[in-house]
C-alpha cells in the first residue's frame, strides 16, 4: 500500500466539496435569478449515494448542500492504491477538519468562514461518543436503512416497486429476514471485538457485500436460522484456504467467536442458536441488524422480490432506494437523529 494518509484523503474530499459546492451554487444562483443573500452555507456530509437520496427527501431544501464522501473516496483510493475501508471515518475527519481547523492542517480563508458543516453517520456497532461533538449526527439504529424500517413499520406494505410487480411481502417473511440478519449482526459484532488481526480479516471479508464476496445469503437460511458454521465455511472457501493449517485456523476462529461475550449465551456448543432472540428489545435488535444484510435476506426468502430486483449489488441498492422513496418522512420526527439535527438548524422544526 502507498504512503498516503487519511489526512490527504480528507484534503481531497474537502477540495472536491469546494468544486461541487461551487457548481451547485452557480446552478442555484441561475435558478433564483437574484443575488444570494444567504450568509451561511450549510453542508451535510454523508457516507454514500443512498444517504444523499434519503436526505434530499427529508430536508427538501436546496440551500443545504448534501455531499457524499463515496464514490469519490473509493475512486481516489483506488488511484492512490490505498485501502478504502471506512467512509464513516472520512465523514468524521472532514467535519472535524472544517469545524476545528486549529486541530488540523487545513487552512481556511474568509470564503469558508460562513460554512456550517455537519455530518450524518451510521451507528454500526459503535457505542456512541459522538453526542459531545455537536456537528456529527448518528443514526439511532445500526444504519439509515434500519432506521427507516424501524421508524416506519408499514414501509414494506407500501413499498413502491413491490406494488408495481404485485409482490406481497408477508409479515412472517419480514420477521424471518429480521431474525437471520440479527443473527448475522451478532456474528459481525463478535468479529468486530476480536483482537487478532487474522481473525479480524474475517470481519473485513464478511463486510464485503453482494457479488464482491460471493457470499450466498440463500444458503445461509438453514431451518429458519442463520448458520454460523455455514457462514464460516463459506468465508473460508472464499478465502480459498485449502490446506490443513487454515482448517485449524477456521476452527480456532470459530472457537474464539463463540466464546465472545456477545455470542456465548446465544449459541450452543454445536453452533446452533438458542432461539431466544425474541426476548431482545425491538430497538436493540435494529441496533445490531445491518440494513444491507436485511434487504438481501428479505430478497432471498421472497423469490418474487429477488426476481423483481435481481440478485447483484446494484439490485440491493435498488431495494434500498425504493425504501427511501416509500419512506414516510414524517416518521423521522420522533428519532434522536432528527432532534440532534434540529438543534443545529439542519432540519426544520416540526
Amino acid at each position: 500500500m502507498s504512503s498516503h494518509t487519511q489526512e490527504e484523503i480528507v484534503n481531497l474530499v474537502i477540495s472536491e466539496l469546494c468544486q461541487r459546492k461551487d457548481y451547485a451554487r452557480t446552478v442555484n444562483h441561475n435558478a433564483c435569478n437574484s443575488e444570494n443573500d444567504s450568509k451561511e452555507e450549510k453542508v451535510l456530509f454523508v457516507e454514500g449515494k443512498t444517504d444523499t437520496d434519503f436526505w434530499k427527501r427529508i430536508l427538501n431544501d436546496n440551500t443545504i448542500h448534501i455531499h457524499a464522501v463515496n464514490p469519490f473516496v473509493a475512486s481516489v483510493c483506488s488511484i492512490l492504491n490505498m485501502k478504502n475501508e471506512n467512509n464513516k471515518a472520512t465523514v468524521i475527519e472532514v467535519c472535524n477538519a472544517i469545524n476545528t481547523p486549529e486541530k488540523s492542517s487545513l487552512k481556511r480563508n474568509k470564503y469558508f468562514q460562513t460554512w456550517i458543516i455537519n455530518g450524518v453517520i451510521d451507528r454500526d456497532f459503535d457505542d456512541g461518543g459522538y453526542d459531545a461533538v455537536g456537528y456529527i449526527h448518528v443514526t439511532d439504529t445500526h444504519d439509515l436503512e434500519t432506521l427507516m424500517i424501524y421508524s416506519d413499520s408499514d414501509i414494506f406494505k407500501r413499498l413502491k416497486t413491490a406494488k408495481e410487480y404485485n409482490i406481497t411481502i408477508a409479515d412472517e417473511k419480514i420477521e424471518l429476514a429480521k431474525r437471520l440478519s440479527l443473527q448475522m449482526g451478532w456474528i459481525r459484532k463478535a468479529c468486530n471485538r476480536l483482537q487478532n488481526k487474522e481473525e479480524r480479516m474475517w470481519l473485513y471479508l464478511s463486510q464485503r457485500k453482494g457479488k464482491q464476496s460471493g457470499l450466498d445469503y440463500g444458503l445461509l437460511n438453514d431451518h429458519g436460522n442463520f448458520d454460523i458454521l455455514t457462514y464460516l465455511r463459506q468465508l473460508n472457501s472464499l478465502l480459498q484456504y485449502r490446506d490443513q493449517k487454515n482448517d485449524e485456523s477456521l476452527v480456532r476462529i470459530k472457537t474464539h467467536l463463540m466464546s465472545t461475550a456477545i455470542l456465548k449465551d446465544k449459541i450452543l456448543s454445536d453452533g446452533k442458536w438458542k432461539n431466544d432472540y425474541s426476548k431482545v428489545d425491538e430497538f436493540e435488535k435494529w441496533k445490531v441488524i445491518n440494513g444491507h444484510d436485511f434487504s438481501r435476506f428479505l430478497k432471498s426468502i421472497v423469490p418474487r422480490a429477488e426476481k423483481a430486483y435481481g440478485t447483484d449489488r446494484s439490485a440491493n441498492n435498488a431495494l434500498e432506494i425504493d425504501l427511501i422513496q416509500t419512506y414516510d418522512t414524517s416518521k423521522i420526527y420522533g428519532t434522536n437523529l432528527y432532534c440532534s439535527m434540529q438543534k443545529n438548524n439542519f432540519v426544520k422544526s416540526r
Partner: protein
Amino acid sequence: MYWCEKCKHFLHDDKCSKCGQEATWITPVSNIIETIKVDKLFSRYSFELTFDSAESVSIMIAPNGYGKTTLFHFVRFLLDPSYESYLDILGVPFRRIVCIMKDGSEYGVAQGKCKPEDTSVEVQEILSSKDTHLLYWHKENNVVHKWSLDKILKDNLSLYKKELDIYRDELPNNCSDSVFILDELFSALNQKASKLSVKFIPADRLFASEERQKSIYSDLNLNNMNETISKQILQVKRKYELEYINKVNRYIYELAIKNRSKEYYDYYYDETTEEWIEIKDKLQEIWKEYSEKVNNYKKQNILTEYYKSLPYDGVLLDENMFEKIESDCSNIVLTEIVEILTCILDAMKPIDEFFERLDLLLKIINERLEVTEKVIILNNEGKLVVNTKGSRKSLPLSVLSSGEKNDLFLFYDLIFATEKTDIVLIDEPEISWHIEWQMTFIEKIQQIWKRNHFQTIIATHSPSIINGNIDLIAERVDKYYE
C-alpha cells in the same frame, strides 16, 4: 512577509504560530491583482473575484463555460496589452471587466453602453449609446487615463497605411500591414498604460505550440524543445567563455608582464606591511570562490569548446599560475587582480542563475519521473536527454509521454519564462497528469515562486490540484448589474 518552510504558509511574524519554527523573509510581489470585477461576460455572468493578497498562489474554480479562460485573456489584455491579447478578447460579448490591484490602481475595459456605477470611471460620457466602442482605462493615484481603442485603431490605421506605402519595402515579409500596425499600436499602449507583465499558460499548451510551430504563449518550441533548450545553454556558454574567460586571461597575462618590470617590482613590493597581508588573504578567499566555480563549470561541460580558441594558447588561470602570480607580484598588482576577479564573479552571476534554474527544472521533473524510472540529464553536447533504467542509450525528449511533455513544458515556462513576470495565469494545469502529480503541483509552484516572485492564478476543475488548499480559492460573489 515571512514564509514557513514546514507549513508552506505565509506569515506576518518571523515565527510560525503552528509549528513554532523560524520563518524566512520573502520579498512580496510588488503589485498583485486583488479583485476582478466582471460585468455581463458573455452577456450573462456578473461576479466579483477576490484574491488573498497574502498568498502567492490563488485558485479559481467555476463550472465549464463560466468564463475562466476568457477571464485570463482579459487579465492579460488589461495588464499587458498586445495585439495577441487583443485578438483573444475580440468578439467576446461583455460589458465591463476591471482589475483592481493591491496598490489601489485599476485597469479596465468596457464595451457598448455602460452605466457608471461600480466603477470610478465615468464610462457613460465617453461611450455613445449608438456605437459599440472598446474603452480601455488605467487609474492610478485617482488619475484616470482613457483610450477609446476603436477610435485609436480607426484613426491610426488610415494614418499608418499612408506611411506604409512609403516604407513598404522595409516591412518584414511575413508581416501583414494591419498586424504590423496593430502591434505597434499595442506596444505603444502597453508602454503608456501598464507596468506589469503577464504570462498566460493555456490549457491547450501542447497543441497550440504544435500548430503554430512556436507557441505564442511560450518561449519554448515543443517541436524542437531540445534544440530550444540546448541553444540557450550554448548561448550562455559562449557568453561566459568569450566575454569572461577571455578577460581574465588577458588581464592576468598583462599583469604578469607588467610585474616582470624590475622598476615596477622594486617600487611596489613590500611584504612587511599590513596592507600586503590583508590583500593576500583577500586574494586567497576570492581565488577559492573563483576556482571552485570554474571547476564546477568544467564538470558541467560548460568549458569544452571555446576556451581553446582563446588568445594566449587557451591558457586558463589555474592553480600553478595563481601560485606564481601570488608569490611574484607586488601588492598593487594583487589588488588589481582581486578587483578583476570580483568583477568576473559578478559577471558570472547570470550564468550561475541559468544553471540554478536548469537544476531546479531537472530536480522537479526528475522527482516526478521517478515513478517510471526515467531521468532527464544535460549531456556532453549540452542537450537534454532522457535516460531510462535498463537502457544504455540516451533518448530524445520526444519519447516522453504527453503528460510528461506537459510537465516539462509547464515547469520550463514557469522557471525560465517568468524571470521578469509579475503575474502568471495557468489554465487547467492538471491536463494529462496523474493524481499524484496534481497533488504536489501547488507545492512545486511555491518552490519556484521563491526564485521568481510572481502572482500565480490557477484555473482548475481538479480537487487534486486544490488538495486541501481551500484558503487559496478565490472568493467569487455572483452579482446582478442592471
